[in-house]
């Protein structure tokens, strides 16, 4: 390793040195270097970096030794849906794809806009390649809705993957992603460009072990009248960040951004979103629900940025509600509306608290045991955030139920 590479990250941790070594082993490429440099500005982001105060990867990722956790079942797997699989060792795709989908696995990495704002997205991009594509391009043409499933799983030390979707005008994509952990550090970057009138349904399931770090970064750009429906269920990991950065680029673009997080003891789930209303008359509806047990941590950071000139007639709402199921549960929330335009409708709400004692007693008086009553009320509490997942809603709810019954 050259001295220059070592010096990329100031005062590096052992894990960061391993990341530098991993980068150095990949084929040299000017774009890859730029992406790694973007990551290196912060290194593994930690509490000193704006937006990472409660989600400290630098402190949490102490080693990149492959964990010994058993593989987990993929609740979103369906027969008949084309599935792309990313593991540290290989990438697999079906021989034939549904009509309207075109895949191009490139060795090289592609440039990434806003890499400095998403250090773990930049890291995923900089470390993709070798046994997996440097960039996987997926083009979705207009026509019947296309369905695609993606799995990101171990075993291994580092699982870095990058997929770039281009939805042509009028195209409709239903993509599901299962981020199942199994690596010491899993970093996935998924980018979507929605051309005029395109529709995206994206459903994300995340689960990770108590020694694993996971970062799922999504970057979404929407053209005129494009619409996205995003639904996430995050069960956390030692540290897990699910970050979505969405830009309404042209008039009439709409986004529904829903997420539920459930964090048990020793686990953390971070839902971070950044939405920029870069054109007039765009709509954002955001709902995040969470439930946390003793020793677990939930983080919600939501930001709407509405510029003075381009953001007029913005219609946006942000809601975050968290349940602290036990003493010792932690929830950190930072809803942020940066509204510079004057002709807008923006609303936000943020609550956190315990289960309602009167409701619990009502259920118990009817004979429902305490643990089951808690699970029922918690499931009812988060259910609304999963309603938009369409045909996958039941699968997500089943996972949430299993978690709740186990937690209780």
């Amino acid at each position: 390793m050259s001295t220059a590479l070592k010096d990329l990250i100031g005062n590096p941790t052992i894990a960061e040195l391993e990341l530098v070594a991993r980068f150095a082993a990949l084929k040299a490429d000017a774009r890859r270097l730029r992406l790694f440099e973007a990551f290196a500005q912060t290194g593994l982001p930690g509490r000193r970096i704006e937006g990472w105060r409660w989600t400290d990867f630098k402190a949490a990722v102490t080693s990149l030794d492959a964990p010994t956790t058993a593989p987990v079942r993929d609740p979103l797997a369906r027969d008949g849906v084309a599935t792309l699989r990313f593991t540290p060792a290989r990438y697999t795709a079906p021989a034939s794809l549904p009509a309207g989908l075109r895949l191009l696995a490139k060795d090289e990495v592609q440039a990434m806009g806003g890499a400095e704002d998403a250090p773990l997205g930049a890291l995923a991009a900089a470390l993709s390649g070798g046994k997996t594509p440097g960039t996987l391009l997926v083009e979705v043409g207009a026509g019947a809705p296309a369905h695609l499933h993606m799995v990101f799983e171990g075993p291994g030390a580092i699982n870095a993957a990058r997929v770039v979707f281009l939805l042509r005008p009028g195209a409709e994509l239903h993509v599901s992603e299962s981020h199942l952990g199994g690596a010491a550090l899993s970093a996935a970057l998924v980018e979507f460009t929605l051309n005029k009138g395109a529709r995206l349904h994206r459903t994300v399931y995340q689960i990770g072990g108590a020694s694993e770090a996971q970062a799922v970064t999504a970057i979404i750009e929407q053209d005129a009248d494009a619409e996205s429906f995003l639904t996430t269920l995050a069960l956390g990991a030692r540290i897990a960040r699910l970050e979505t950065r969405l830009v309404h680029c042209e008039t009439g673009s709409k986004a529904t951004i829903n997420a539920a997080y459930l964090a048990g003891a020793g686990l953390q789930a971070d839902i971070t979103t950044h939405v920029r209303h870069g054109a007039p008359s765009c709509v954002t509806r955001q709902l995040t629900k969470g439930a946390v047990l003793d020793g677990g941590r939930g983080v919600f950071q939501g930001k709407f940025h509405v510029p003075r000139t381009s953001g007029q007639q913005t219609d946006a709402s942000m809601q975050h509600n968290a349940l602290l199921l036990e003493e010792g549960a932690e929830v950190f929330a930072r809803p942020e509306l940066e509204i510079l335009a004057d002709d807008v409708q923006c609303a936000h709400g943020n609550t956190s608290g315990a289960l309602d004692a009167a409701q619990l007693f009502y259920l118990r008086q009817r004979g429902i045991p305490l643990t089951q009553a808690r699970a029922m009320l918690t499931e009812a509490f988060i259910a609304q955030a999963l309603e938009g997942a369409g045909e996958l809603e039941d699968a997500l709810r089943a996972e949430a139920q299993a978690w709740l019954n186990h937690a209780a």
Partner: protein
Amino acid sequence: MLKIENLTATVGEGEDAKTILNALSLAVPAGEVHAIMGPNGAGKSTLSYVLTGREGYAVTGGSATLNGADILALEPEARAAAGLFLSFQYPVEIPGVPVMTFVRTAMNAQRKARGETEISAPDFIKKSREIARVLSLDPEMLKRPVNVGFSGGEKKRLEIYQMMMLEPRFMVLDETDSGLDIDALRTVAEGVNALRAPDRGMLVITHYQRLLDYIKPDKVHVLARGRIIRTGGPELAHRLEAEGYDGVLAEAV
């Protein structure tokens, strides 16, 4: 059947603890319906909560048994499985939980606790349909979340629906008449009367005599300052209605 002896209970903690039930004694034999009447603040609702095990009350003396078994030692859900049912004065809303799901979960939880088999879905639906008809409940209402957006009268009727579905052995009705118009009152009373049986008991807590025209009690107790100060037949309720509580309270001192 239900036997309460010298029951003393407080609400609040430490120096703020306040005695609400003060050596209250009461017995309701199987097959009987007893009414408890009393002025505001007498401890009527507290009695219903202490019997069913709501948090926030501390029993500091006395006992309560159902068919000889100590109920005060049990968790609220175990008391329910033992057959104790409370029709709430203020039924709570449970967003996101449909009525049918809720009642079926409750019924099967009780059955499981008693070592019985679960009710099948068709049997449950059949039973639910019949009871909804008796109570003039819109079947659509039973698909909606528990009590969410229901009127006061609908909430009370839903309490009786649950009672008829769960077929408890002992029922406590806490101010079931409040918020009901005369037609709803009649419907609710019909439902309650249909549950009268030789092996069942009932405690009807009310502020007014009106409900007792429809649910005829075997005995009427007057509760004041945390204890039963007077017991009589149905005529006692009429006297209270005519004279107010002051006369009876004054006599008792």
